[in-house]
């Protein structure tokens, strides 16, 4: 129980950057979505760790909200991916490039 707070933060940062790595390298929309979830959860780790650190529950409660919002985001995201697939017959996020410049 006495892991130093730095490591929690570093963990969350690592997670955050892993998520980011996914976003930057994966072209599949679903992977993209999942990566975003990882990043959100990285924030949750922080929140919970800091809640403990500060001894109040604010962070913990906020983490709950974050999860709910993540779910909502995924719902909308999947809807968009659905119409994306219907239109482009692909879920590769790099395919839709009809608008640029």
């Amino acid at each position, binding site marked *: 129980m006495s892991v130093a707070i730095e490591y929690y933060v570093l963990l969350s940062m690592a997670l955050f950057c892993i998520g*980011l790595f996914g*976003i*930057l*390298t994966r*072209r599949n929309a679903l992977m993209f979505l999942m990566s975003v979830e990882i990043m959100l959860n990285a924030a949750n780790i922080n929140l919970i760790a800091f809640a403990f650190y500060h001894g109040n529950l604010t962070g913990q409660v906020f983490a709950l909200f974050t999860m709910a919002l993540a779910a909502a985001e995924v719902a909308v995201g999947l809807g968009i991916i659905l119409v994306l697939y219907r239109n482009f017959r692909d879920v590769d*996020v*790099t395919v*839709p*490039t*009809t*608008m*640029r*410049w």
Partner: protein
Amino acid sequence: MEGLFDYAPAIALFPLAAFVIALAFGNYLPKKGAIPGIVATGGSLALSLAMLAAVAGGEEGYYHDTLYTWAAGDAASEVGPEGIEFTFGILIDPLAALMLVIVSLISFLVHVFSLGYMNDEGETGLPRYYAGLGLFTFSMLAFVYADNLLMAFMFFELVGLCSFLLIGFWFRTRSAPSAAKKAFLVTRFGDYFFLIGVIAIAATFGTLQFAGNDSFIAAAEAAIDGNEQLFGFGAETWVTITALLVLGGVVGKSAQFPLHTWLPDAMEGPTTVSALIHAATMVAAGVYLVARMFGYYALSPTALAIVAFVGGFTALFAATMGCVKDDVKQVLAYSTISQYGYMMLGLGVGGYVAGVFHLMNHAFFKALLFLGAGAVIILMHHEQNMWKMGGLKDKAPVTYWTFVAGALALAGIIPFSGFWSKDEILYDALIVGLEEPLILAAYAMGLVAVFFTGFYTFRMVFLTFHGKPRSEAAEDPHGVGWSIKLPLLTLGVLAVVAGIANLAPVYKLTGIELTFLESWLEGGLEGTTYVAYTELLGDVYDTGFIGTESTTVLIAAGLSLALAFSGAGVAWKLYNVPEPVRHTEKLGGAYDVLRSNYYQDEYQVWLAEGLTLPLARAADRFDQTVIDGTVDGVSTASLFGSDRVKRIQTGIVTNYAALLVTGFIVLLIVLGILGGWFV
């Protein structure tokens, strides 16, 4: 009589009214506007004569009044008052009164002549013609009685406008508009210096009055006496500079070298116009201006000498060119230039009376010659080439005899008017020249010019009237009416007798008081009288005599008369034959030079078209490419930048994420380093 002066403005306003009437209603009037013009100039003539009488009979002998303040304001002048007023005023002193009479008389005669020359010949656009004449007469008269330099300048410019309009009267041809443009442009070039002069004088002395205690002439004299520094120059130097600047306008208007080139071209206008404007009056404006502010020139020996030298040179220079012309009007044009050179010479050597005297005489005989030439042109069905004339002597005696009278006057044959005035000028030049080598050179040129004058004058007379008719037109001349003969006769008489006005040699030889003009010019406003000028000139020029005064007079008169006769004699010998030939081959290469007017036109045209125009085109190209190119370049560069910037948006969302993260990292690093987050 004094109350009469209240009507002085009307002298100029009559022709102005004629101008308005002719312009507005000319088309609906009988004679298309000639009648109002004749009435108005007649009125002006009558009033001018009345003024002459009033000046002669009045106690003060002059009239000077400020009519109207054009503009006033504060301006610090070098010396003089803190404020300045630009006004319109009338100054009628003996000089102005004389000139008023000359101008209104000739204008009146030209109007009458025009009935025969223009109306009867079925010209179109006559209202325009009479309006132009009216406006010209107005401007010229107003110029003459202007009491200050600015007003003089303004009407000086306006006569230039009228000259432009009237030269270009036959605007449907190619040559007339071109000549009109040239006339205005060349005189404008002179006026440019004139205007600088006006402004410099105003800025220096805070006044532009010609006469009176607050005149700039008086102020200049005071400044010279006080050894003031004006604009960093000694007062006399500055007076010289400003006087020469004003002289620029004079040189332009009076067609002196090197701005004489417009006058021969100006012969594209109707001959009546040439008579009125380009011989008798407007061209005289320059000389008149010098006479008007003679006191100012008299303050500067340098300026006077330059006036004299320019005059002498022009007299000779133009006379030589007059010898080879074929067009009767061209001959007259060069003779005009030459004669104004004499006047300048006269004024420049201090012969104030002589200059004014010649101005008057020349006005009469040159107007006569031009009108005579106009009559000839009518006779010849608008043929102007002398080589196609001949033998008109018997068919048009009135024209012939009046023309000969004018020619004798022009050539300076005793006792015609021209002799007296020209002789006086040469005499004045000689006596000064004996002490001043430069003036002597000017005198020499003037003297040589007498020979050429005699030659070209009689070459013209003989070619035109003598010998056998050399064309069909000459064999069957067109008749001329009373409206032509009447002015010719009037002027013919004047050309013969006008010399009586100032028989200075007679006075000098016999002591008989026949110098009416001199005594006339002795009157007037203090400081503008001949007496005052004589005093001033005493400081400027020393005079010398060859032997006694009488011998000098005789030598001078004899020399010029001999030269005039020999010139006339040569012409007699060469051209008073039934079938005259050109004799040009005798001149060899000189002929080409003369024929080309010493290439004066060429270099001036080159200045305008060979130098200025390419320069302007270069400036234009510079403007289009460099200056405007810079403006457009900024816009092009912006749009190019825009095109690059928008390429960042590749359309691939992963790239966006990458760029976004990049941006974020950059921001983080910048702020982190600045905020010390990494240490």
